[in-house]
């Protein structure tokens, strides 16, 4: 008769993930019975907060949902609202918005790679240990991060909760000399990001190829940031207005975050940089595109641990596109389109650093928000992360629980999940029967 054996391991935090979460694994003999990743999502009351407010409040309120990717939330909200009221921003505004997104990608990817993810590949407990071993590389990464912040200050009015984004455009277009002052740094950054990509592409990666359905925006002419159609590696595409036809959110008992799944099959799907590169590699900027060929990764790539290479390529792209825009920039007026409020409802998707963000807004004829739906990328990846953990755990069970916890964390960090607004500690609970 097998003696029932239950062990409980507490890990203080899902370390170096942006926020906290918890993981419970139940094992019966050699069989993984259950994997539950609990994410404490930014409360849905942000959607409730917006109801009844003027639509112009949306960028400011939604930027507070996430400390690392405020621009993603702002952009998606204004795009959805502009579609709802039937206005189309100028090409200059569109370009500036892409630049702002590049800034956020540079900063967010820079932080994630150098402070959170790279330590895993050298068995470093923290970025401090990594800095001891690779001080030049960490300093390089921090300088890249700083550039993203600097550009956000110029475009957003301030780096902390950018305030310059509004429905119809920007409150103020930056001056030419403000933009040109960044060119030298960004040229350095382009060269540095190429070096970062070559560095991370050379890491030792666990052999973990899975059969994913990856989903991202796709665009005929550009690498997708703010616009495009929904595309899947299973071969289908759809307009963003059809998001809720193809995906649905469901409540799970172990997580306050709603899990987003494929509507037809209740199955998982995968969003984020790896999905974007797999679906849009031909649209990367010239240097990034060539680099994606040179670094020895087989595309399409289905190893989540190699998401860091996709992130690094996106930083190269972001620098290259930023330089083009910075060099060509001419101030323009008006920075913001005049419009009349009118009743309407529409949707938008933009590509946050971590993957697609979906918004649906309904506004009344006075310009007040009647209804909002916000689907962040991490809730879209939640089921996929659980599925990956289920797949990787059999190879980890021979080790002790502390090692198991650490390896689970490494896999989760590959997704760069955005787990926010929680004071909870992660508990890795392993129940063995």
């Amino acid at each position, binding site marked *: 008769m097998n003696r029932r054996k239950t062990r409980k391991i507490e890990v203080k935090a899902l370390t170096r993930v942006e926020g*906290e979460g918890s993981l419970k694994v139940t094992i019966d003999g050699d069989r993984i019975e259950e994997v539950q990743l609990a994410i404490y999502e930014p409360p849905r009351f942000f959607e409730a907060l917006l109801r009844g407010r003027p639509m112009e409040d949306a960028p400011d309120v939604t930027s*507070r949902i996430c400390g690392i990717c405020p621009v993603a939330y702002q952009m998606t909200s204004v795009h959805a609202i502009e579609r709802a009221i039937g206005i189309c921003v100028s090409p200059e505004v569109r370009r500036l918005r892409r630049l702002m997104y590049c800034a956020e990608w540079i900063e967010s990817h820079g932080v994630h790679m150098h402070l959170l993810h790279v330590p895993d590949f050298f068995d470093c407990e923290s970025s401090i240990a990594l800095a001891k071993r690779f001080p030049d590389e960490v300093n390089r990464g921090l300088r890249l991060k700083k550039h993203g912040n600097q550009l956000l200050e110029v475009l957003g009015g301030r780096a902390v*909760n950018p305030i310059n984004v509004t429905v119809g455009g920007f409150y103020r277009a930056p001056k030419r000399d403000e933009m040109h002052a960044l060119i030298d740094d960004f040229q350095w950054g382009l060269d540095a990001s190429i070096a970062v990509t070559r560095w991370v592409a050379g890491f030792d990666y666990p052999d973990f190829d899975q059969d994913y359905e990856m989903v991202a925006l796709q665009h005929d002419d550009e690498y997708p940031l703010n616009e495009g159609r929904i595309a899947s590696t299973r071969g289908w595409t759809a307009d963003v207005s059809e998001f809720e036809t193809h995906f649905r959110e469901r409540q799970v008992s172990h997580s306050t975050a709603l899990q987003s799944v494929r509507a037809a099959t209740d199955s998982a799907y995968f969003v984020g940089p790896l999905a974007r590169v797999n679906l849009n590699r031909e649209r990367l900027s010239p240097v990034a595109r060539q680099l994606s060929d040179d670094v020895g990764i087989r595309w399409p790539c289905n190893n989540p641990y190699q998401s860091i290479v996709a992130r690094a390529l996106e930083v190269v792209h972001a620098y290259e596109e930023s330089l083009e825009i910075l060099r060509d920039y001419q101030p323009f007026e008006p920075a913001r389109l005049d419009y009349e409020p009118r009743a309407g409802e529409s949707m938008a998707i933009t590509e946050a650093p971590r993957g697609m963000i979906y918004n649906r807004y309904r506004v009344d004829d006075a310009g007040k928000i009647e209804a909002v739906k916000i689907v962040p990328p991490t809730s879209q990846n939640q089921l996929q992360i659980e599925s990956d953990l289920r797949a990787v755990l059999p190879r980890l069970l021979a080790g002790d629980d502390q090692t198991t916890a650490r390896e689970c964390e490494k896999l989760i960090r590959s997704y760069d999940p955005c787990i926010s607004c929680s004071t909870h500690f992660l508990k890795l609970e392993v129940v063995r029967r």
Partner: protein
Amino acid sequence: MKPAILVAGIGSPHGDDRAGWFVIDRLGGSVTESCSLRKIKVPHELLDYIDQVDVLHLVDAYAAESSGSRIVRYELTGGVESPSELRFELAGDPSEAVGNSTAVAANPRSDTSHHIDLVSVLRLMGQLKRLPRRVTLWAVPGKRFEADVSLSAACEAGAIRCAKTIRQELDDA
């Protein structure tokens, strides 16, 4: 030559978590040329502003357990030879300690998201030899940290006192 000083308020728009930013606003316009002020949202943003800084003052809110909670001052100590041992120690009356602890744990913030904790950021600075000579943390008591609520009157009063104390210290430097 006067030291280069940075006063950084760590905060967010959520309730009393604005305290750090409020202190920065309060100090604005009244500090010397050698002093710069910054609002930051997550501790790793400090890494963008830390070069050539000699003295760093940090201001952040903490979740106060009682209505009489005070502004608490901590100094960063240790770790000259080993940055991983840097830690905050209470500077002053132990009875004033946050949560009865004389040392600030790795994460003094009460509402965390998206960041490496403050102590880890400072240890990283130490490891990269970019740590200011002196680092002081001012913890302002707060009660409510929910989204979309304003700074409470009690916390605002504490932040005003904190700004006054920091200004005095800057004047004396």
